[in-house]
């Protein structure tokens, strides 16, 4: 009988914490993979042209983006389309959208609202001009042509 008796006193073993870092790493990886840096799902391609005379877009909370480019889904053709938030839109939808963007900001921030145009480089200017005309109509004068860094002569 004494064969099976443990030596020493009976003690509650310490909880092993050696696996805790693994759990934390797992969490890091999970969030790294699932976090998307963008807040909208892009339905259009936006390979932007390059430019050198560029400024940093300050205060992201005051920027609303309009995406213009050929649809990712090739079934929809190659003609450039406008994307507002998560859906395709027509130029005449921009006025309402700007109003909605303004309403979601505080009163003090509204005049500082900037519209970032993220346009695919092969887009024809016709669409962009239509968008700009709509923006002028609703008084959204501050715009930013979002570009990549690089020599403009390579475009």
């Amino acid at each position, binding site marked *: 009988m004494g064969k099976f008796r443990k030596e020493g006193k009976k003690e509650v073993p310490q909880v092993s*914490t*050696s696996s*805790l*870092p693994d759990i*934390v*790493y797992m969490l*890091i990886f999970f969030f790294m993979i699932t976090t998307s*840096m963008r807040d909208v799902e892009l339905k259009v391609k936006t390979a932007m*042209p*390059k*430019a*050198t*005379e*560029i*400024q*940093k*877009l300050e205060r*992201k909370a005051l*920027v609303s983006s309009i995406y213009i480019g050929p649809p990712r889904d090739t079934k929809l053709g190659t003609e450039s389309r406008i994307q507002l938030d998560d859906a395709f839109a027509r130029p005449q939808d921009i006025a309402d959208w700007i109003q909605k963007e303004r309403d979601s900001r505080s009163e003090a921030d509204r005049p500082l609202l*900037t519209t*970032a145009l993220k*346009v*695919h*480089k*092969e*887009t*024809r*200017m*016709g669409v*962009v*001009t239509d968008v*700009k*005309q709509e*923006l*002028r*109509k609703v*008084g*959204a*004068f*501050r*715009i*930013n*042509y*979002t*570009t*990549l*860094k690089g020599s*403009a*002569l390579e*475009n």
Partner: protein
Amino acid sequence: MARKTPEINSSSQADIAFLLLCFFLMTTSMDVDYGITRRLPPPVEQNDEDVKVKERNVMNVMVNKSDKLLVNGRPSDISLLKDEAKRFMTPRPNDETAPEVETKHFDLVGDVLMSKGVISLQNDRGTSYAMYISVQNELARAFNELKEEMAWQKFHKHLDQLTEDQTKAINEAVPVRVSEAEPVVYGAN
């Protein structure tokens, strides 16, 4: 007799992992956007209210639907545009073909000889966006170089080393005079 090796205390490894997590959280920049910032003009009420501008004061830059440049009616190239714009905007009081000049007084920089020139940019609906950005960029580069020269001449400093007031003064003395023509449709594209 086998000796028991003491276990390495790994309770602090979690802290190290958290530290790493915090470090990456702080340093990761969520893709910062850069771009050319512009201010759109307010919509025009009447179309017949044309402002008369002397021909010598205007540099016409036109881009057609196959991305070809026309500067003052002559074909040009994007690589030459910056120098052409810069030459046009540099005040030359004794040149009859150059834009008119005027002398204005600004705080900090004093009396400045300013060109009355305006660069008018017109593009076709079929122009590619890449070309449009290139043209905008080259024109902006011309003005930035003029500002840089002015900054060096007045303050013996580079543009990015100026104080806020000095930058403001330079921006007033060298205004970016690029006007985009109202869109017109010349038939189908």
